[in-house]
C-alpha cells in the first residue's frame, strides 16, 4: 500500500469503510427512482423526441429545412458537432491521461466523466451524418470495397480523417469505460436479489471473479487502453480542427487551430463534467467522494485551459494583423465588429473572462459559482465554434457572395434534441451503472481516506 503524505488532502471524506463505499455507489441502482429523476427524464425524453422529429423532417425534405445557404454551407450542424466532440474530451483525459500520471483524485470522477464522453460523442456523431445531403449513402465515407468500380475515399479530406478519428475515439473510449466497469458490475451482480437484475449484471460483469489473476489482467488492460486513449485525446480534436485549418477560408486557415482546439475541448469537457457532477454529488449524496477538492482541481484546469484559449484568440488577432493578408485581417475585424459581433463578444466573455475568476480560491471552491461558470463556459464554447464557422464563411473572399445565417426551428430542434438525447442516456446511466469506480476507489481508501489518513498520522505520532 502506498504511503501518502499527510499534507495531501484526503480524497475520500468521512469515516468510510469498504462496505460504506459499496453501499453509497450501489444505492441509486438498488433504490427506486425518485420523482426528480422522472421529471428530468421526461423532459429529456421530450427534447429527444423533438429532435428525432427534426431529424426525420430533415431527411424527408432536405437540408433546405435548415437555415443554410449558398455561402454558409455549415452552421449549427458543425457547430454542434464540434461542441459535442469538445465536451467529450474530459472523460478520456481524466481516465487515461490522469491514470498514466497517477493522479488518484481522478478515481471518483472518471466513471461519470467517461460516460459523459461517450454520450456526447454519440451526439457529435449524429451531426456529420445527418448534415449530409444524401444521408442514405453515408456509407460512401467508409473505405469499403464496393461494387461501384474502383471508387475509393479521398484520403486528402479532413472530413474523412474525422470519420476515422471519431470512430476510433468512440470505440476506444467505450472499451476503456467498459473494462473499468467490469468489477463494479460484478459487485452489483453479487448484491442483486432480483433474478432478472442479477442475470443482466451477470452478463455485464463478464464472469468477473475477483481473483488475483483477474485483477492483474484488469490493471494491465487498463494501462494498455490508457496508453491507447491518451494520444486520442489530442488527435480527435486536432483532426476536427483540421476541417478548418486545412481550408482556404480566411478565419479557418490557421495553423494554431490544433492546440487551440484541444485546449478548448478540454476546457469545455471539464466544464461539462462540473455541471454534471455537481448535480450527481448532490442528488446521489456523494459529497464524500466528489469533494470540494475535486471541484477545485477541475476549476484549475478550466482556468488554465481557458487562459490558453484566450491566448489563442489573441494570437489569431495578432497573426491576422501581422500577416498583412487583407482577407485575414478583414475576417477577424469582421468577427469582432461585424454583424456577428455579439457572438464574438459572448465567446470572449464566457471563455476568456469568466474563468479568470477561478484565480480566487474562495470562488473556485464555491459550488454555486462553479456550477454557473461551468454552464457559462459551455455557452462560450458553443459560441466559439459558431464564430469560427459562421463568421468566417459568411464574409469570405468575394463580397458579392456575402450572406448571413439564421437558424430555423428545425436547426434548433435538432440541437435541443441532442441535448435531450444526451440526458436520456446520462439519466439512464445514473440509475443503472455504478457512477463511481468503486473498485478503484477502494484501492486508495487506506491511503487517502480521511479517517484512515488521520489514523496514520496518529500512528506516526505514536511511533515517534
Amino acid at each position, binding site marked *: 500500500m502506498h504511503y501518502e503524505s499527510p499534507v495531501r488532502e484526503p480524497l475520500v471524506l468521512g469515516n468510510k469503510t469498504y462496505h460504506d463505499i459499496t453501499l453509497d455507489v450501489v444505492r441509486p441502482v438498488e433504490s427506486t427512482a425518485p420523482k426528480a429523476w422522472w421529471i428530468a427524464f421526461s423532459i429529456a425524453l421530450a427534447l429527444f423526441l423533438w429532435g428525432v422529429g427534426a431529424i426525420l423532417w430533415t431527411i424527408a*425534405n*432536405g*437540408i*433546405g429545412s435548415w*437555415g*443554410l*445557404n*449558398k*455561402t454558409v*454551407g*455549415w452552421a449549427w450542424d458543425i457547430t454542434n458537432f464540434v461542441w459535442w466532440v469538445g465536451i467529450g474530451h474530459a472523460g478520456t483525459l481524466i481516465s487515461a491521461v490522469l491514470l498514466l500520471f497517477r493522479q488518484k483524485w481522478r478515481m471518483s470522477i472518471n466513471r461519470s466523466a467517461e460516460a459523459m464522453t461517450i454520450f456526447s460523442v454519440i451526439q457529435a456523431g449524429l451531426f*456529420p451524418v445527418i*448534415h*449530409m*445531403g*444524401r*444521408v442514405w*449513402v*453515408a456509407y*460512401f*465515407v467508409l473505405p469499403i470495397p464496393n461494387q*461501384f468500380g474502383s*471508387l*475509393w*475515399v*479521398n484520403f*486528402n*479530406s*479532413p*472530413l*474523412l480523417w474525422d*470519420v476515422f478519428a471519431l470512430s476510433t475515439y468512440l470505440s476506444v473510449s467505450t472499451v476503456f469505460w467498459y473494462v473499468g466497469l467490469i468489477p463494479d458490475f460484478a459487485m452489483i451482480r453479487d448484491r442483486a436479489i432480483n433474478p432478472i437484475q442479477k442475470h443482466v449484471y451477470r452478463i455485464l460483469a463478464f464472469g468477473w471473479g475477483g481473483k488475483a489473476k483477474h485483477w492483474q489482467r484488469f490493471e494491465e488492460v487498463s494501462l494498455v487502453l490508457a496508453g491507447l486513449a491518451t494520444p486520442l485525446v489530442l488527435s480527435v480534436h486536432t483532426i476536427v480542427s483540421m*476541417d478548418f485549418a*486545412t*481550408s*482556404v*477560408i480566411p478565419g479557418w486557415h490557421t495553423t494554431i487551430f490544433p492546440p487551440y482546439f484541444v485546449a478548448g475541448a478540454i476546457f469545455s469537457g471539464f466544464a461539462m463534467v462540473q455541471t454534471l457532477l455537481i448535480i450527481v454529488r448532490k442528488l446521489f449524496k456523494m459529497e464524500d467522494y466528489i469533494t470540494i477538492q475535486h471541484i477545485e482541481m477541475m476549476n484549475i484546469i478550466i482556468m488554465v485551459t481557458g487562459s490558453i484559449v484566450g491566448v489563442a484568440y489573441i494570437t489569431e488577432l495578432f497573426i491576422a494583423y501581422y500577416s498583412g493578408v*487583407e*482577407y485575414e485581417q*478583414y475576417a477577424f*475585424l*469582421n468577427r469582432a*465588429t461585424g454583424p456577428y459581433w455579439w457572438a464574438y463578444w459572448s465567446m470572449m466573455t464566457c471563455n476568456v473572462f469568466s474563468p479568470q475568476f477561478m484565480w480566487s480560491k474562495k470562488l473556485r471552491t464555491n459550488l454555486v459559482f462553479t456550477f454557473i461558470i461551468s454552464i457559462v463556459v459551455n455557452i462560450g464554447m458553443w459560441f466559439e465554434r459558431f464564430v469560427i464557422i459562421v463568421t468566417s*464563411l459568411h*464574409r*469570405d*473572399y*468575394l*463580397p*458579392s*457572395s*456575402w*450572406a*448571413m*445565417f*439564421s437558424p430555423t426551428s428545425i436547426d434548433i430542434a435538432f440541437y435541443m434534441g441532442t441535448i435531450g438525447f444526451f440526458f436520456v442516456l446520462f439519466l439512464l446511466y445514473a440509475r443503472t451503472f455504478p457512477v463511481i469506480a468503486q473498485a478503484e476507489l477502494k484501492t486508495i481508501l487506506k491511503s487517502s481516506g480521511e479517517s484512515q489518513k488521520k489514523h496514520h498520522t496518529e500512528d506516526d505520532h505514536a511511533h515517534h
Partner: protein
Amino acid sequence: MASEKKYWKGFDELGNTPVAQKLAQNEFAEELPVEAILGDGAVLESANTSRRDFLKFVGFSTAAATLAACENPIVESIPYVVKPEAITPGIPNYYATSYVDGQDFASVLIKTREGRPIKVEPGDKGFFNSGTTARAQASVLSLYDSARLSGPVKGEEASDWKKVEAALKSAVEKSKAEGKTFTLLTSSVFSPSTKGVIERMRGAYANFNHVQWDAASVSQKLDVWEALTGNRALPFYDLASAKVIVSIGEDFLGAGMAQQMASDYAVGRKPGAGMSRHYQFESNLSMTGSNADQRVKVKASEYGAALAYLYNQVSGASVRVGALSADAKKVLDRAAKDLVAHKGASVVFSGGNIGANEHLAAAINAALSNIGTTVQAGKSVYVAQGNDRSLSNLAADLKAGRVGALVVWGANPAYAAPGFAELIKKATFSLALTDRLDETAALCTYAAPVPHYLESWNDYTPVAGHYAVAQPTIAPLFDSKPAQEVLMSLLGDSTSYKDVVRNSISARGLSVNAILHDGGVQLSDGASGAGSGAAAKALAGASVAAEEAAKAATGEWEVVFYQKAVGAGFQSNNPWLHELPDPISRVTWDNYVTISAADALKLGVENTSESNGAINGSYLTLTVNGTTLERVPAWIQPGQAAGTLGLALGYGRTKVGKVADNVGVNAYSLMKGGSAYAVAKVSLAEEEHQFASVQLGNTMMGRKIVNETTLATFLADSTGKSWNEKAEFHTLQGTVNANDANLWPDHDHKTMHMWNMSIDLNSCIGCGACVVACHIENNVPVVGKDEVRRFRDMHWLRIDRYYSSDTSHESAEADGVGVMAKYAAMEVPSASPEVVFQPVMCQHCNHAPCETVCPVAATTHSQEGLNHMTYNRCIGTRYCANNCPYKVRRFNWFNYMKNDKFSSVNPSQDDLGRMVLNPDVTVRSRGVMEKCSFCIQRIQYAKLEAKKKGEPMEAGAFTTACAQACSTGAMSFGDVNNAKSAVAAVKQDPRAYHLLEEVGTQPSVFYQTKVRNQA
C-alpha cells in the same frame, strides 16, 4: 470475316459422331433422376430440405425479388417505328428562324432534340439582331408554358375554330351593315406576308381599321423620324464606328430596344487608341449607364434641357434651354467638345418616348454630321411601329360604341393601356388571338390560341434590306391557328399561312430551301435615299423642339419607367426571366421603385436586413393624375437621381399564369400614352416588402476583384506591370508568382486539351443572356422568390455587380480614418457609383480547394483542366462549397423536381415544362452539389465528332452556352493547347489576370482588366 470462325466443344462435335448427335437432341446431357428422388418416400422423409423449408425458400426468394423490384420506376422510351428523316436520337438539329415575341426581333438558331426545341442560339449568318438577349434565350420555355391556351374558348366554355370563325364572320358582316368599324389591334407588324393579309382585309372591308400599338411605346420617336424621313421607323445606329457616344436617358444596351446594339457597342469598347468614350445622363442607374465612362444623374424632366444645351454647345445655336444642374452642364461641355472632335463618328441618343427630345437628338446628330454615318436615317428599323394616337382613337371609338368587331392579336391593352379594360366590353364583338387567356382575352367574347413563334411560319422585314423568315421547329402543341389564317377565313380563303409565306419567298425570286437554311437573306445594305433630307429638317426644327422640350412636366417626384429582363411583359410567365437577377439591383422576382439614399431618408424609406440577410423594404404609395398605385416596394439604389423613382414595366400581371400572377406591381397603370416618366405624389405606406436579392455585399471592399484602369494608364504601359500587378510570394527560392508557389504537384496541362475561358470585363455589359443560357443548357432548377431570398439561388453562372465606394484604403489613410470606420465606410456604395460587372462561374481551378476536401472524391480533376463533379458519388457534405473561394458551388437543398414548394415556379414540375430539359445533362437529385461544368456535354460531343472524323478538334469547333449567348464576345472559350484558338491568344494579353490569384488556385478562367476611357 471475323464472324466466320466456329468453335467446337470437342472432337466429337467436329466429327459429328452419333454420340454427339444424340447429345445434341437432349436438352440435358444426363437424365435427371427425378423419379429416383421423388419416388422414394424414405429418401424424401430423410431429406434435409423439407417441404416447409422449400416454402420458406420460395417465400424468401419471392420477397427478395419483390424488394429488389422496389427500384425507381422504369419509364418506357419508345423507339421510332419509322425513323423520321434527319432525326437521329441523341443528335441535335438546328433550324434558323426568327424570334419575335411582340416586342423584339432576333435572328436565331433553334436547337431541337428528337423533335423538341430545347435551346435558342444566336443566328450564325450575321444578320440584323443576331445576338440573343436573355429574353430571346428564355423564349423557348414560353413554348412549353402550361398556362398557354389549348383551344378556342367562349368565356369559360370550350369552343372550336369553326364557331370562332363563324362568329367572327357574322360579327364583321354585321359591323359592316351597322356602319361600325372592324378593328384589328396588334403590336408592331413588320412581316410582309402578314401585311399582305391585312391589306387584303382592308380591300375587302371598307370599315376595316388596323391599329398597331406597342406597350413599351416609342411612338413619339417614330413620329419624329416619320416627319424627318417619311418612313415610320427608327434609324439604324452604327455604334461600331462611333467614337463618342452620348446618351441622354436612353438605355440603349438594355431590354426593349428594337435594334440590338450590344455587339456593335463592344466593338468600340476594345481598349486601345481608338476606344470609344461613352457619356450617360440619366435618372435611373441603367445597365447602359453602368457601362458608361462618365455618368451624370439628371432628372427625366431635364433630359430635354440637357439635349438643348448640348445642341447649343455643338452647333453654336442658342435654342431655349430649360433648368439644368451645373454638374450636368459641366460634363455636357466636355461631352460637346468630344463630340465636335469626332464629327461623323459620334452618336447622341435620347431616351424615353419623348418626341421633342428625339428631335433635338436628331438635330445634334445632324449638326455633328452623324446622320448618314452613325445614324443611318436612310436605313429603317421596322421592329417598332406602334402608334399611340391610333390606340387613343380606338379607345374613343370604343367609348362611342363605334366598334362592331374587335380582333386583338398579340397585344394586351387591358393590362398595358390604363382604362382599356372597361372599353373592350363596349365592342359589339371581340376576339382575342392570343397565347393565353390573359387580361385582355378574358374580357373578349372569344379567345383563341395562336401558335408560339417556334410553331409558326412567317417572314419579316426587321430592317431595310434584310428579309427574314420564321419556320416551325415543332408541330403545334395545342389546337392553335395562325392569326393570318383566321383573317383569311373571312375572305373564304383557306390557304395555309405556310403557303402564303412560301409564296412570298418565291415571289421575291428567292430559293425557299436556301432561305430556310439561313433563316433569312440580306437583300441589300438597306441604305436608301429616304434619309437625305433628314439632317436639314432636323436642324430646322431644333428650336421649336427645344421650346417644346422646355415645357416638360416637372415635379417633386418623377417616376421614370424602364424595362428589365421581362421587358414589356409578354413573357412575364417565364420563370427563368424572373429568377435572373436584375443586372443592377440584383433583385429577382420583383419590380419596385428605385430611390436614392437621400430621398429614402427624406421619405422615411428603409431597406433593412433580417437576421438571415434577407432584405425588406418599405412600401410607397404613388399617385399620378389621380391614379394610385398601392404597395410599391422601394429599393434604395445608388446612382438614382434625386427626385426620381425608377419603376420597371412588365410586372403586376394578373392573368398570365401561376409563375407570375401578382408578381410586382403594374407600372403601366401610371403610364399615360407611353410616356417616359410621370410626375407623381409619393407617400410612405405601412408594412414591409420582402425582397429577394442575391447580393448583399455591394462594393469590392478595397480588394482586387475587378482589376480596373484608365485608358491613359493602359496606353502608357503596354506590359501591364503598373496596372495589372500579379500576386507574388517571397519564398526561399526568391520571388515567385502565386501560381507557382505550390504545395501540390502540378497536373499535366500539356498532353491533352486544356480548356480555358477568358472573360473580358471591358466587353461584358452585364445583360445576363449568359446566365439564362447556362440555366437552360444545364437544366438548372428554378427555386423561386422565397429560396432566392434565403440566398439559395442555383445559378451556375452569376454576374457580380460592384459599386465603387467613396472610401478606399488610400483615401482612408490620407484622411486618417480608423480601420473599423474604414471598412464600415467601404461597405457603403457611392451616391454616384462607378459600376463593374463580373461574370463568375466555376473557375475550374487546377489546384482546386474543393477537390482536396471532398471525403468521397466526388469532385475531381480532369486531365483537361476541368474540375469534375460526380453527382452519383456526392453525399452532400457541402465542404467543397465552403472551401470554394469563389462561392460558385450550388447545393440542391430540396428536391426541386418534386417538392410542392416549387410547383408554381419550377417548370420541370409539369410534363409540358419538362420537355425543355436538355437530355444531355443529368437533372440533379436532392442533396448533391452542382456547379458549372464548362458545358462538358458540349466538350464531349465535339470530341466525339472530331474522333468520328479522325481529325484533331478544330479551334472554335464549339463553345460553352454562356460564351455562345454573349453578343459582345466578352467570353471566349477554347483549348489553350491549340495555338490557333482565340483563348490561347488572349491568355497572353497583358490585361489578363486570375481572380484571387494569391490564393494559389490556378484557375482555368481568367479575366481581362477593365479599362475606362475617362476624360
